[in-house]
Every structure is written in C-alpha cells, then in structure tokens.
C-alpha cells in the first residue's frame, strides 16, 4: 500500500507500541506533524524546549521499560536534543529521536535551519540514521527501535529530510532487521558461570554491587534470590537504586563519593565483588588502585566493552543480568555468612550515614525524609543533579522497582522537571515527585507550561538554598569558601507557579514541612513547593574525587580545608 514518509513514520511507531511522543514542531518536521491527526493513537505532548522532549522521553522510558520517543525539527531543534541524547546514552536509556531535516536537494548547502545532525549526534547516540530514500524508512525505524531497546539500551536518532516525509512509496513494515554487526550476547558463558559460582562459594566477605542493568533487565527476583541464597549483602549504585528493596536486611545502601560510609568500608573489606549491570564509574571507584584492594571481581554486564575498562576483572560474564543471574543461581549453594553480616551490621551502627542532624532549621535531608514518610516510600522520585540528588538517594528508602529516576552518568542539571513529566505520563497512576535543585530547576522551568497545559500531576519540590549547592560545597572544602559564581539570585518560585496557573506553596520553617507536603499531596494536579532550606548544608559522607575510602569525610569538620585547589580534580 502507498503511504507518505510521514504516514510511514506514524504507522511504524504504532507497530512498535508507541503511544506517546514528546516533541516540538518546526518547518522541516511539519509534514510529520500535519499527519499526526490521522493517528489519534499517538498522543503528542508539546514541550517548550526540545531538550525537555528528550528528557521527558527518557523519564518515560526509565519508569515503563518501554522506548521513549521524541520529535524535533532540523537545525536548532535537533541540536537542542543533544543534552537529552547524551544523558540517555550515559545512563543506557532506550530512546528513539526523530528529527526533521532540510529537503534532500538542500543538504550540504547550509540551508535555513540545516545542521549535520547525524554528525553532531554521532558520539551521543547508540546509532543514528539519515534516511535519504523513503523506501528505507520503515526498515530504518524498525532497526532504530530494535537497537534502542536491545542489548545495552541507548538513544537512536533518525533524521528525515522534509521531502522524504512527503514522498509517497509502497509501505510494508518488516518483520525482522538485518544487522549483521549487531548481536548482543545475552547468556553468560557456562564456564565463567561455573567459575563465578565457585568464587562465591569460596568467598568469606562477598558484596553485590547492583547497577542500572538490574533494573533495565528486570532482574529483581534473580538478584534477591542470589543475595538471599548465598547471603550476600547488596549495595546499589546511584542508578541501581530501587533494584533491590532498601528495607531488606541485606541492603547496604549506595557506594561511592556520597555513598554510605558502611557501604564503602564494606567494599574495602570485601574479598569478592559481584558487579551486576554497573560500569565502575569514577564516582563509585575513586582512586582505582585503592578500590576494593582485597577483592576478586565478578563482572556481569551486557556490554563486553565495560568489562576490564575501568577495573581488572577476575571473572567476566557478558550477558543480560536476568539470564546470567538465573543461570548463576542454579549453581550457587545455600550459604550462611553470619560473621560477615554481623560485621556489616556493626559498621552500620558505627557509621550511621543515614542519620539526619538534629536542627530547628529546614534541613534538606529532613525534607526528603518527610516526603518519604508522607508517600510511604511508594512515590517515583525524579531528581536533578547536585546536593538534592544525593540527599534524595540517601534519605528516601526505595522499595519499588524503577522508582528512582536520576541523571547519573552525564549529571544533567535541569533533568528533573521534564523527566518527572515523562515519568508521570508513563505511569499515570503512580505518585511522582521531582526533587529539584534551585539551579537546575531554572534550566528547564519553561516546562511548567507543558505540565499545566497537559494536567500532568507532578509534585515539584524545589530545594531552594540560593546556591549551586554542590559546587558551593566543593568551594567550601577545596577552595577555602571562595564562592565564585555559585550564589543564586532566584525568582519568587511561588509567584512563578501562580503565573503558570499551578498551585505554589512555600516552606520556610521546619513545622511547615510535613503539613505542606500533605497539602500538596491532597491537590489533584501539579504543585510546586518552594522549600527554603538551610543554605550551606553539605552532603556527607564524602570521598573527594580521585581519592579512596581512607580519605572519606563522614561528618562536617569545622574550618575544614582538605587539599589545595590544584589537587582537586573533577
């Protein structure tokens, strides 16, 4: 049957199970937009900036496990997607971005709103395409979705010239893809599984490091089985949070720069690390030579390139976390590790990293704690990047899979509002809270219009400390309190909410925290809360960049100056 390129895109999306698209219109993608009314199954949510189309698709993908989809026009529309694509690539999020391009004859002529989009996005996508023949469109979109969701997921961009969207060709959606160079390895090698099981049986102080891969492959039950059967404590990385219930007796919290002290000490003492779907990021590892010096490492990851990239591995296991764990569990024996579990319990008591300082002030940690209590730990929490992100990771207790959404790898400030929007659209029955920094919030706040227009019921909690707080903390510790370019002038956030037509509330003292949270929860529809929090509160524990657990700062030290500024890396 004959279809225009634009119709082919819409029908292909429907075939791939897409029900919502986040996007922003423009000249080069107009034929596709003008076709949307023919396909009411495809709900389109118009954002106010393309970056937020990508972040919304990202939030949607992370909570649903489906592929998030965004549209943008050529040139500036497409370049605005770049931050969102890079965020998704770093965090392995399944996304398909469709961009309009200038007509084929104009390509390479510096036409109006022309950019080499496949060139620009090459290093920030898993793969990308420029479709020069409408006959290739259906197969390309099929491939794009296949690549986005299989193996190690990631963003795939399809750039479509305007006249390709308009041209009519025969359409048939292919049943399979032809990608001879792409074959994700899903099952672990039997010999390595045997070796891993043997190491687990021999280990005295094993630790599981569970990352995003557990959530992506939905390996929750398999992870729990392994932990319980072999009595192995579980640490979840920032992106692994909610992959293992934090109220479980074997849960040991988060590792790394702002991880729990006991988690980092446990890694240091461990004789076997079982890393599952995580990539030994520098924020987890610190100084490589001092990381887990006593431990052998079993590394399970679907991406072979992650194995041996940052740390030396004893047993490499390339495969899908769910399948590899299932196979491993069949070979792992029941074990008791009373002594090791007891040691960790002692560590937890000696290093109570979860404790919130006693104060009459509005401490940000307390605000997170109260949101947790009020929501019963059942909300989806979406964060930006910085201090509030770390407090949200530390002081909310996650028990529901895929309930923590954050930009871990790229560290994209401004992620929270659009990603929360996408998460709510993906999981409309879930309560969604965005924990926002006052800095990051102002990078994407134009989406308040999208939220109000589409009645997206998200609660936006701004942690307003009038600083780029995390950078200020570094300046306090590493640069002798020289606060260069971190003090923030903020607008009146409540009036801003009012201007956009949403409920705005403010908290300035501790007694108001819980009542205002409850009030916000009672509102049907979006609410912004301006939590005016203690402005110079720091995130602890802290392992300064490029150091080890031995250099960990557990609590505020008066007049602390750690090292000279030139010694502190990123």
């Amino acid at each position, binding site marked *: 049957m004959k279809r225009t390129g634009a119709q082919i895109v819409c029908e292909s999306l429907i075939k791939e199970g897409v029900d919502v698209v986040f996007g922003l219109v423009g000249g080069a993608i107009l034929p596709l937009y003008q076709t949307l009314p023919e396909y009411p199954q495809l709900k389109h949510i118009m954002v106010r900036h393309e970056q937020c189309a990508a972040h919304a698709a990202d939030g949607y993908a992370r909570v649903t496990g489906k592929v998030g989809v965004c549209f943008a026009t050529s040139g500036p529309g497409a370049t605005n997607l770049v931050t969102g694509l890079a965020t998704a690539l770093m965090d392995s999020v399944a996304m398909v971005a469709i961009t309009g391009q200038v007509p084929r004859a104009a390509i390479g002529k510096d036409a109006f709103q022309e950019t080499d989009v496949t060139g620009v996005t*090459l290093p920030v996508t898993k793969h990308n395409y420029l479709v020069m023949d409408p006959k290739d469109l259906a197969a390309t979109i099929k491939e794009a979705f296949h690549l986005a969701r*299989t193996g190690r997921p990631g963003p795939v961009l399809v750039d479509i010239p305007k006249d390709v969207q308009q041209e009519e060709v025969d359409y048939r959606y292919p049943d399979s893809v032809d990608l001879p160079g792409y074959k994700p390895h899903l099952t672990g090698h039997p010999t390595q599984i045997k070796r891993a099981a043997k190491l687990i049986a021999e280990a005295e102080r094993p630790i599981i490091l569970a990352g995003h891969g557990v959530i992506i492959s939905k390996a929750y039950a398999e992870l729990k089985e392994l932990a319980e059967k072999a009595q192995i404590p579980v640490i979840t990385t920032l992106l692994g949070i909610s992959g293992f219930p934090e109220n479980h007796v074997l849960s040991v919290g988060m590792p790394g720069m702002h991880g729990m002290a006991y988690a980092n000490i446990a890694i240091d003492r461990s004789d076997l690390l079982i890393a599952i779907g995580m990539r030994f990021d520098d924020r987890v590892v610190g100084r490589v030579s001092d990381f887990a010096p006593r431990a052998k490492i079993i590394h399970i990851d679907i991406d072979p*390139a992650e194995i*041996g990239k940052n740390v030396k591995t004893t047993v490499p296991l390339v495969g899908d976390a769910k399948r590899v764990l299932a196979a491993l569990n069949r070979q792992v024996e029941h074990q008791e590790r009373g002594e090791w579990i007891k040691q960790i319990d002692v560590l937890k008591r000696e290093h109570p990293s979860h404790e919130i300082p006693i104060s009459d002030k509005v401490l940000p940690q307390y605000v997170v704690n109260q949101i947790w209590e009020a929501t019963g730990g059942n909300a989806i929490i979406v964060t930006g990047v910085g201090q509030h992100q770390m407090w949200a990771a530390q002081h909310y207790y996650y028990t529901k899979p895929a309930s923590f959404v954050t930009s871990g790898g790229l560290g994209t400030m401004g992620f929270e509002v659009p990603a929360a929007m996408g998460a709510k659209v993906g999981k409309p029955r879930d309560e969604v809270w965005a924990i926002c920094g006052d800095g990051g919030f102002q990078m994407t706040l134009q989406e308040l219009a999208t939220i109000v227009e589409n009645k997206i019921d998200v609660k936006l909690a701004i942690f307003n400390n009038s600083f780029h707080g995390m950078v200020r903390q570094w300046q306090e510790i590493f640069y002798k309190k020289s606060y260069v370019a971190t003090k923030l002038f903020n607008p009146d956030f409540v009036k801003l909410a009012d201007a956009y037509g949403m409920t705005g509330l403010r908290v300035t003292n501790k007694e108001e925290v819980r009542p205002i949270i409850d009030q916000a929860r009672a509102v049907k529809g979006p609410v912004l809360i301006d939590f005016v929090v203690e402005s110079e509160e720091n995130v602890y524990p802290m392992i300064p960049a490029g150091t080890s657990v031995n250099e960990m700062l557990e609590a505020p030290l008066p007049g602390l100056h750690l090292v000279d500024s030139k010694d502190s890396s990123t």
Partner: protein
Amino acid sequence: MSGNNVHSHTITALVQDRPGVLTRIASMFRRRGFNIASLAVGKSEQAQLSRMTFVVDSDSDDIVEQVTKQLHKIIEVVKVSDLSKEDIVARELALVKVRAQTASARSEIIQVVELFRAKIVDVAADSVAIEVTGDEDKIESILTLLRGFGIVEVMRTGRVAMVRGKKAPLKTGEAKSRASTRGG
C-alpha cells in the same frame, strides 16, 4: 602512553559499506583517546562489506582489547580481529617521487629499485616515481637510501594484513544467519 614498551598492534575489521562508517570509527578512536598509527580501507571479497586494517601503537594489551571491543560496538562493524599475536602477512605500498636530474643519479636509483624489487612507474625529465611494496621496515630502508637523491613526495597506504593459512574470512551468509538469531 609512553615508555619503551610501545608495540604496534594490527587489528582488522569487516565493516558494512554505509555512509559515515569511517566517521564513526575515526570518531570513536578520537574520543576514547586511542592512537591510530595507520588505517587502510578497501573492498573485501564480499559485496557491501569493506575490510579495514588498523595499526594501533600501545604499550598495553588492555588498551588493544578496549580498541577491539569499542570497534565491535559500532553497529556497522561486523567482525573485528586482533592479529597482534597471529602469524600474519602484512604489507604496505608506497609511491616515492625522487629527484633524478642526471644520468648517473638515474642509474643509481635503478640499482636501488632492483635491489628492493621495487618498480619505476613514472619517469620525468628530472624525477622518477617508484612503487615499492613490503613491510614497514623494507619501506623505511628504501626511503633511507633514496633520501640521498632528494625525495620530492611520499605516498603510503598504511598496512594491510591477513592471517597466514587456514583461517577463512567471515562469509556474508554467516553474518546474515547471525542476524536472524539475535534475541532481545
């Protein structure tokens, strides 16, 4: 990377002939900080597939392993082989334009060319162009000898390599069947 342990490693890749595939590969090398000493590309024995030979200088086997893994991650790369530890035939072709203004210079150059089993492929009034094939050492040696006459221009292809004997290259049919067994 530094030190005396830098070795050159030969890696070959079978890649799909698609627009931008070379950019993807070059971009990966650049952004991950891998050094390409040479790169040669040409059609393979199979339609729509090209074969590339990379020479990577590195003092660490881990880096070479990362190069092969990162290459393999590129969707259009069908197969990657690290030939560093294989018994291989490796050749490079060079075109060298040398000054030859006198009859005696010309006859001396011809002697050198014969000695290296090279070929004179062009003769002009005051220069000759020489084609020489061999491993890098051989090409370096002839260049050293020719330098005395005055080298006008050198054009080198970079190394191409294949494993000696038994091993057959991956067939397209094999690649196709791999594609159809891929799971989600």
